């Protein structure tokens, strides 16, 4: 870097040129860009940028080339302010030119009506941007960021500057843009004209806000339904999760640790609706309980379980383990010396618990509540499986888009409400707690012994948590054996028929035939989740690094947008993608790529959180020492930080892979017959009442996922620290 200050600029100029020459400019329908590489100098769809501009009459594409040329002029100047002006101007001209023409010239000429009147019909059209356009835009963004760095922003660090700008561009394109576009749909009335009344009319809809159920009427509005359910779920999961955490950390012996760990792992590797199905086998119309009641008391089986009760119970099962993991971390973080101090000051155990322990858990409780709330309103699988007539926003949005109604405006209005709920609780949590943080783990050893819980509390914990764990076990066992039973409720013959339907293998004339109906969706899911997991982990850790270790103007808004992805419910993100990316310049609907991108940005916060937590543990002096030894920021990242971040890397990889495999809400809008996913396939089976196949599939999915997670853990491995057992290393742990 010292010897060739302009090397990076030259490289990125070359990449930009290559984007114009070596790749097809537009997205190719029905095939991948690398199949048409031989045809990039001909054809109207497959040509590269230069041919498109000169031969195919699309001269506006040259604005990108002009941008590159202007940036190249900067090379004649020495690195510094003068060069920065050229780089900034070049990047700006290229990005603005390509961006504006990209949004205004679409598949049928001008895509904005006013321009037709202004310039007349445009005979040439353009398709969605493809590989060539992507490479050119990337290089322009990087050159623009180099310009910023040369001007002295980002401490003059080219790498940090381009990382920040690229991440911002990604967040803007794949979160801010689609969500804004989708939500703005609520402002357009049926004729496509902008009107505030349309929004008010839709949001104030009777169906959404009626409180009929309180007055003994038939039903409450869908917004109230969602809110009741979310509050109940958040409250329930927080209480249960906290109790389990206290039990696990303070009462349970080593014997109980293994089952608790399994319970904590279950929701990661199971699709969220599995418990819903297990509950149906227990309490549904053909469930064990109803059958027993009919047998014993002659009661007619009904669908009493479907509705608020069923959904709530299913969500409690599905999300309590998440609250448990959050609270467990918080309980572990309590310094025992604080409780010892309280006891020295003559507080008995009960007083200590309620005056010291519990208040210290407060931020964790708020966090668990927030997560439970957001998970609940974003949940799609459980409401659709056990919701019955009890409709919630996420399912209503789905039916507004894919159902017979096809009412984009209503979907957008519902998405508004859902987003506002999420943002509201998010703001409430941040506002109430602020930066309040009682985490008391520090580099210094705290040798105190945690206080045993007061006896009354311990008895309460035992009497709640053990039955709950037993119940969880029963539900999972039922979900498991459901796949091996012919027809639940009628014919309990043990059979492998469902597995055969889903995963049958046959020897045909041409060798092995994947005859089962589920193979296709299984392979698609594995492929797409496998592609998205490393990307999610990579970008997530990169954003975490930028947030933790660099300081730049606009850092706060950057952090806000990155966290926003967490608060936006999956359903809203899915709807946004289908509304925003079905027209040029970004035309992705129906491809596997849009599902990968959706996985990435849906799961991004997980990667960011794993990374942020890890960076807090890593002494900043290590990065600085590496920088002082003349390593570049990129070298530092790859030789020092990444090897030390291995646990966080594994966590991010595992979570993003598992979440991609099990998510329903966002991708249900994006799947096609060609790109069917495991979860949506299962939901479809459940819709047909085909529980056997659905449960068999769930079983296979859970087993497969456990194996893959073990494999990731094994491959990436532990970080090499050469630590002595039990000894703490002063150099690794940052001083508090």
């Amino acid at each position, binding site marked *: 870097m010292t010897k060739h200050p302009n090397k990076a600029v030259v490289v990125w100029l070359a990449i930009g040129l290559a984007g114009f020459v070596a790749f097809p400019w537009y997205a190719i329908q029905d095939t991948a860009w690398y199949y048409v590489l031989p045809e990039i100098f001909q054809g109207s769809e497959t040509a590269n940028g230069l041919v498109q501009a000169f031969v195919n009459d699309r001269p506006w594409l040259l604005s990108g080339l002009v941008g590159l040329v202007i940036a190249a002029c900067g090379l004649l100047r020495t690195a510094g302010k003068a060069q920065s002006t050229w780089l900034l101007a070049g990047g700006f001209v290229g990005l603005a030119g390509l961006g504006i023409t990209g949004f205004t010239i679409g598949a049928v000429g001008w895509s904005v009506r006013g321009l037709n009147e202004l310039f007349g019909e445009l005979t040439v059209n353009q398709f969605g941007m493809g590989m060539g356009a992507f490479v050119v835009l990337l290089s322009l963004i990087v050159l623009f960021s180099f310009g910023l760095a040369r001007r*002295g922003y980002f401490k*003059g660090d080219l790498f940090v500057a381009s990382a920040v700008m690229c991440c911002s561009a990604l967040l803007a394109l794949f979160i801010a843009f689609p969500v804004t576009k989708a939500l703005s749909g609520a402002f357009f009335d049926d004729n496509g004209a902008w009107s505030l009344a349309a929004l008010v009319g839709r949001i104030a809809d009777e169906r959404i806000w009626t409180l009929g159920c309180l007055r003994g009427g038939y039903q409450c509005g869908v917004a109230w339904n969602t809110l009741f359910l979310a509050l109940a779920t958040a409250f329930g999961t927080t209480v249960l999760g906290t109790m389990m955490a206290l039990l696990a950390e303070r009462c349970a012996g080593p014997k109980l640790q293994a089952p608790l760990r399994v319970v904590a792992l279950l929701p990661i590797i199971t699709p969220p609706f599995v418990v819903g199905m297990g509950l149906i086998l227990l309490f549904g119309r053909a469930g064990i309980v109803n059958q027993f009641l009919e047998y014993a008391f002659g009661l007619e089986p009904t669908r009493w379980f479907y509705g608020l009760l069923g959904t709530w119970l299913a969500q409690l099962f599905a999300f309590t383990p998440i609250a448990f993991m959050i609270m467990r971390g918080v309980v572990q973080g309590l310094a025992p010396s604080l409780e010892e101090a309280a006891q020295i000051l003559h507080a008995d155990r009960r007083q200590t618990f309620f005056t010291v322990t519990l208040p210290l858990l407060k931020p964790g409780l708020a966090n668990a509540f927030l997560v439970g709330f957001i998970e609940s309103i974003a949940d799609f699988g459980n409401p659709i499986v056990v919701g019955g007539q009890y409709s919630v926003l996420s399912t209503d949005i789905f039916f507004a888009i894919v159902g017979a109604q096809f009412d984009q405006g209503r979907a957008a209005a519902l998405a508004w409400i859902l987003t506002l709920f999420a943002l509201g609780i998010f703001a409430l949590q941040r506002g109430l707690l602020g930066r309040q943080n009682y985490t008391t783990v520090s580099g210094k050893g705290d040798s105190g012994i945690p206080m045993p819980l007061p006896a009354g509390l311990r008895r309460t914990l035992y009497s709640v948590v053990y039955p709950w764990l037993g119940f969880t076990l029963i539900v999972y066992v039922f979900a498991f054996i459901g796949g091996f039973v012919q027809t639940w409720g009628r014919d309990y013959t043990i059979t492998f028929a469902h597995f055969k339907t889903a995963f049958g293998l046959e020897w045909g004339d041409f060798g092995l035939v994947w005859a089962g109906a589920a193979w296709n969706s299984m392979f698609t899911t594995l492929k797409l989740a496998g592609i998205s997991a490393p990307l999610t982990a990579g970008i997530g850790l990169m954003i975490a690094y930028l947030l933790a270790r660099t300081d730049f103007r606009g850092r706060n808004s950057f952090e806000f947008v990155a966290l926003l992805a967490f608060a936006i419910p999956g359903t809203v993100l899915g709807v946004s993608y289908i509304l925003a990316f079905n027209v040029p310049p970004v035309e992705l609907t129906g491809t596997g790529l849009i599902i990968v991108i959706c996985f990435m940005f849906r799961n991004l916060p997980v990667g960011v959180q794993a990374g942020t937590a890890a960076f807090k543990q890593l002494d900043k*002096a*290590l990065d*600085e020492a590496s920088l002082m030894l003349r390593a*570049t920021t990129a070298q530092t990242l790859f030789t*020092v930080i990444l090897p030390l971040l291995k646990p966080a890397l594994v966590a991010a990889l595992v979570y993003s892979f598992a979440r991609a495999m099990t998510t329903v809400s966002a991708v249900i809008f994006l799947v096609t017959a060609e790109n069917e996913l495991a979860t949506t396939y299962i939901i479809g089976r459940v819709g047909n009442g085909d529980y056997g196949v659905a449960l068999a599939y769930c079983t296979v999915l859970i087993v497969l996922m456990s194996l893959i997670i073990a494999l990731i853990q094994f491959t990436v491995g532990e970080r090499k620290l*050469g630590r002595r057992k039990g000894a703490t290393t002063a*150099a690794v742990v940052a001083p508090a």
Partner: protein
Amino acid sequence: MSFGVEFKDITKRYGTDPSAPFAVKGVSFGIEKGTLTTILGPSGCGKTTVLRMIAGLESPTAGQIFIEGREVTTLGPAERNVSMMFQSYALFPHMNVVENVAYGLRMSGVPKETARTRAVETLKNVGLVGYDERMPSELSGGQQQRVALARALILEPEILLFDEPLSNLDARLRRDMREEIRAIQQRLKLTVAYVTHDQSEALAVSDTIIVMNDGLIAQSGTPQEMYERPGSEFVAGFMGEAMLFPGDAKADGLVSLGPLQIVPRQAVTPGKVKVAVRPEAWQIDRSGAGGVRGKLLKRSYLGSLFEYTFETALGNIFVVSPDLAHVLDIGAEVGLSLADHGVSVVRVD
């Protein structure tokens, strides 16, 4: 006179908020080539910020920084010929000793074998042989320190920076390492900036001392100047445990402190002044005659000397006496007078 490092009107404010307070409020100084300069001050005075700005880890809000006459204000750490030893040593915990030391060379593209050979050589120069394959966590504090020093030296920097390098060591090791750092600095003729809050450490190693207080330079000079002729109440109090007494400067140039008359080393303007007296500057007259009359209140035995506290008309006075043969008893009445060293007259702040 050529400077290895030069600061011109440097100010530094953390964050982008214009209302944020300044950590450094306009500092100018030069560090002569081949000398060791200590930046000394209480915590929060801005001394570490100054060091990090030399390193390029922080960029100043305003002002210019020169290294070997070249302006480096906007350059990053990799583009300055500077190396630094961190307070926590910051040894990479996932690399062994040789890998840690060779890291800087490897990052500059030196082949692995060459880097390794030079790393072993550098380790030998700092007196660490036979630990090449150990992990940092398997070393003692002093050994870790040597690895960190070798790692900082291997790039043969023009400027070497130390951020409180001895604060994690015990007292014996501290003296050894202090002398070692000084010896290496003189052998390699390095320009060194050294941050510490320990004044005795600063006195022992420095060619020049810069005392900082509240983001400003309070005074700079040789160790002797700083100790014997402090320019302000703050410096007098910080360099050694001088006690400050209110005095009167008279038109004839003498300064009176109670019954005592002092001839100041530098001219003072008549009026109220402060007299800084070091505890070893008091002379005890056992007959009780002369100077300030005092009664012994407290006594501590420190092995090589006695610490006494006397009650006098000037308030309680803390005195250090090397006289181990004649121990005073509690309640003894003595006369206290001043020696001709260790007394200085400073402005009233």
